[in-house]
């Protein structure tokens, strides 16, 4: 047994068995964040039915934490209303994973940005469905990556 695992058991579980890998054809919202230069790219696909997120899928290029946070994000958003989903923050994701090492917290931030980006895509296509985003983030490059 590994007494000093690099990640929590929950993170390892999501890494070993990621949920909802894939793409949604004709998705209602797609968010692509990060960039290959930084070593992290996340793509989140959401399908909306009524006011709920009926399905979510992801694709990620990145480390164990990046895969785990995007996998967890899809689990967290499925079945939620849009109003509930907009409240999901990077902290929600990190807590759901029983925590992340400090240097990997940016992966959870990226997952939050992926969700915001997917929702923004949906609202752009469906302006009448737009809801107030209490934690509206500007879409910016991950700030902590120096090159």
């Amino acid at each position, binding site marked *: 047994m590994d007494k000093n695992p690099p990640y929590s058991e929950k993170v390892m579980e999501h890494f070993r068995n990621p949920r909802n890998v894939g793409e949604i054809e004709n998705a209602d919202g797609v968010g692509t964040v990060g960039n290959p*230069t930084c070593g992290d790219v996340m793509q989140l696909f959401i399908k909306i039915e009524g006011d709920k997120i009926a399905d979510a899928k992801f694709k990620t*290029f990145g*480390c*164990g934490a*990046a895969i785990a946070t995007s996998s967890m994000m899809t689990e967290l958003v499925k079945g939620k209303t849009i109003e509930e989903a907009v409240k999901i923050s990077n902290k929600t994701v990190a807590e759901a994973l029983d925590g992340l090492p400090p*240097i990997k917290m940016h992966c959870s931030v990226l997952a939050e940005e992926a969700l915001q980006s997917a929702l923004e895509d949906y609202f752009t296509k469906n302006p009448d469905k737009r809801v107030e985003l209490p934690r509206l983030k500007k879409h910016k490059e991950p700030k902590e990556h120096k090159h």
Partner: protein
Amino acid sequence: MSEVMIYLDHAATTPADPAVVKAMEPYHSEKFGNPSTIYKIGREVRAAIDEARDKIADFIGADSSEIIFTSCGTESDNLALIGSAFANENKGNHIIASSVEHHAVIEPLKFLARRGFEVTHVPVDEFGEVDPADIKKAITGKTILISVMHANNEIGTIQPVTEIGQIAKERGIIFHTDAVQTICSVPVNVDDIGANLLAISAHKFYGPKGVGALYVRKGTKMVAHIYGGEQERRRRAGTENVSGIIGMAKAIEVASGRMENDAVRIAMLRDKLIDGLLSKVEESHLNGHPTKRLPNNVNIAFRYVEGESMLLNLDAHGIYASTGSACSSATLEPSHVLLAIGLSHEVAHGSLRFTLGRSTTESQIETVIEKLPPVVERLRMMSPLYKR
């Protein structure tokens, strides 16, 4: 979690040889004397250290008086670079280094740059090899020091140090080489190389951690960095790491008996691993020179996937390797070596390094060839960058 370990990170460190551990033990217990003391148990230890020094000097074609014991390769590099730069600053302030040096060379050079020295980093080709002509072109009237590693730890490329040493000698410039990855792997002779300064680290050749050595050619001016007692002819104070020094000498003795055969055997396994992975995984390529390469180094870029996630998967199979990906480093920067050979950041992030060693068997190599391709495939299916 697998119980069986397939350790393929020998460039990071190696287990101490049992003969080394055995040779060291008495120096913790009954032969514990301080070698600087006047009485019998101190003098005995002093004699043992002298013998160790002779062995190490012989191995690299040096004189015993030209060997300084340090705590590690990093200390040796720091002492060499900062010590020789400061000692020769009346002659000039320009230093030339390759762009693929280890951080133990890069960081002291950054320190020197902050102190007013000018450092030129000479680029490498796509195989990571420095062209001696480029070193020559970079020389000015103020050049006092050239530093080029004997072989690169990440991609295994062996540098043309003999030609560079010759150029340095012709111009009266000090030549430093970090031989941490080559000693006990390929022949290292200070006159063949023409080195003034050469760094060694015991834990890379089945010796203990916490001890290294620096070769300093007679006549090479160098300022000490640790002051105190009279040890190492006042070039590096501090009570010696006696057991470490004895262990290091023993490791060299063991290596001298088996180095050639090991190199042949390990190079065969290296090539088997390279061929196996490149043939089974599409869109993968070898990083570093195909032939002028350390016998134990494999470094392969796998497109569309990231290194740390590959390593975690391999870890689950008991396979231990390393990566040039930013995600696994503390700085979030990808390997400067991989960037220097022209890889994009993205491809640098997807590179894995396997470094073989004495414990590596053909069966272990076959296991890696079997286990890694499905790992890459699975990660590619998850990757937004991969389109079938």
